[in-house]
């Protein structure tokens, strides 16, 4: 589903601020794969996501999503098939517009001059009800009035209402309180399972990285240093993971927000 081959990205090349963010990274995800990503600060996790989404053009290499070469495709076109959630719950929705107005834009069907139909509203109502947050009764309220967790759940709904080929989750529960984070994570799991969406998820929770999905990737210094799945992953503990990281990168894992629980 996702084929990244030998991509590199250097920011500010030739200056004192030169930063090799991604160095010759390759990654293949099979359809339905759910991979978690962990890594040190500045390992290039978010940069990898930005590259996949097309926020910048990589210096070399190619990115193919579902046999479609997107290397030079602008980000707004890629977003048709790539859904993304950020850590900041405010980034995914327009605060000054109502819940239903946000949803109708995300739904993306109908011509430029089409109006929201009663049928659309019914469908949105059902989908919102599934979030179990009472949002179905607040469809005419501006999104800016929602809490962070509600906004993140709404963003998740918006990103998956037309099931994308690829879903990128960049620590999307990190800014939420534990109870809400768990709820958003549960919704994530059920949505991903329902449509078997190929998913990449950055997390700083080590045990989550092993529990969720079917693959765990570790990043360091702009590359993937560890890729475990299957039987090996099933028997792995957090300590094993740390040990393997040390072997792979030659240093201890350093992330100031890493949770070892």
């Amino acid at each position, binding site marked *: 589903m996702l084929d990244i081959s030998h991509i590199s990205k250097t920011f500010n090349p030739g200056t004192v601020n030169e930063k090799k963010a991604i160095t010759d990274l390759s990654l293949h995800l099979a359809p339905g794969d759910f991979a978690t990503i962990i890594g040190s600060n500045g390992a290039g996790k978010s940069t990898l996501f930005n590259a996949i989404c097309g926020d910048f053009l990589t210096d070399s290499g190619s990115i193919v999503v579902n046999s479609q070469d997107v290397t030079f495709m*602008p*980000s*707004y*076109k890629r*977003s*048709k098939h790539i*859904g*993304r959630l950020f850590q900041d719950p405010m*980034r*995914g*929705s*327009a*605060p*000054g*517009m109502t819940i239903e*107005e*946000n949803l*109708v*834009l*995300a739904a*993306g069907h*109908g*011509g*430029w*001059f*089409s*109006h*929201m139909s009663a049928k659309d509203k019914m469908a949105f109502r059902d989908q919102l009800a599934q979030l179990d947050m009472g949002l179905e009764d607040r469809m005419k309220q501006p999104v800016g009035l929602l809490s962070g967790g509600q906004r993140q759940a709404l963003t998740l709904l*918006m*990103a998956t209402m037309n099931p994308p080929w690829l879903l990128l989750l960049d620590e999307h529960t990190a800014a939420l309180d534990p109870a809400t984070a768990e709820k958003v994570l549960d919704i994530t799991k059920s949505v991903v399972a329902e449509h078997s969406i190929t998913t990449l998820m950055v997390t700083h929770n080590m045990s989550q990285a092993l529990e969720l999905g079917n693959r765990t990737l570790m990043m360091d210094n702009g590359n993937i240093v560890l890729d475990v799945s299957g039987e090996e992953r099933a028997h792995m503990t957090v300590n094993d993971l740390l040990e393997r990281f040390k072997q792979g990168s030659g240093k201890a894992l350093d992330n100031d927000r890493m949770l070892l629980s």
Partner: protein
Amino acid sequence: MSFVELQTVIELGLICSLTVLALFLSYSMLGVCDLSTDGCFTLGATVGAVIAVAGHPVLSIPAAMLAGVCSGFVTAVLQTKMGINSLLAGIIVNTGLYSVNIAIMSGSARVNLNKTGTVFTMVKGLLAGTPLEGWHVTVVAGVAVVLTVALLTLFLNTRLGLAIRATGNNPDMVRSSSINPTFTTIVGLCVANALTGLSGCLMAQSQQSTEINIGSGMVTIALASLLIGGTLLGRGGIFLRAVGMVLGAFLFRLVYAVALRLDMPAFMLKLVSSVIVALALALPYLKSQWPVISRRLSYKKALAVKEGK
């Protein structure tokens, strides 16, 4: 206030409210402060005047709007495709339009419409003998405003209109909805400038003359009306907010007319509008700073009392 003065307030309020509605679209919805408004208003006035002089008063209206679309398109392309800051793009276009406007008026800085048939004179003839006699400017401008408010409300609730509003609200979200924010910005500015052009066209024809400075300061005057309208009917649906814009334009003209009666010279109009805009934009900031200021003052006061002991 005399009857004639009130009539002038209504007429000018209606005609200028079209520019306020244009800024409502570009400034409040799209989040772009379009500084080409002055030049575009003059462009609408000159194009409308020249075509009316050529004997096509009805054609002058779509022509002025089309000229506005072109101007808006250039401003939008400069800021979206050429990477020019949106304020600067407006100023650049505004400067360029000065020459364009003089060229349209065949090198002169004035066009006189005293003996020219305009949309207003056409309606004036129709209304002769009816109770509305003498209200031709109000009728024509009123129809234009009602149509504009209705169409703008419809437009802003279409998918394209929603995308334009979202562009000013959160461009990231527009992109992730597979909509190109460059496209929505271009469409938004074209539509907004069409309204500015229409406003200028009606202004020139109602005054029966136009000159190169007819639009100068228009952006500030319209912003003042917009901010007044926003405080009147700022919350609620698009329709109510659009109506608020028209009311804002009226109220601004009313305040100005009252000030004129209190012997304020006419040339003060622009200073008054500047002060209103500056105050309206600064107030939210000053309000947010007030707790800090009051805390500091009370702290100093307490300190002074202590030292006084």
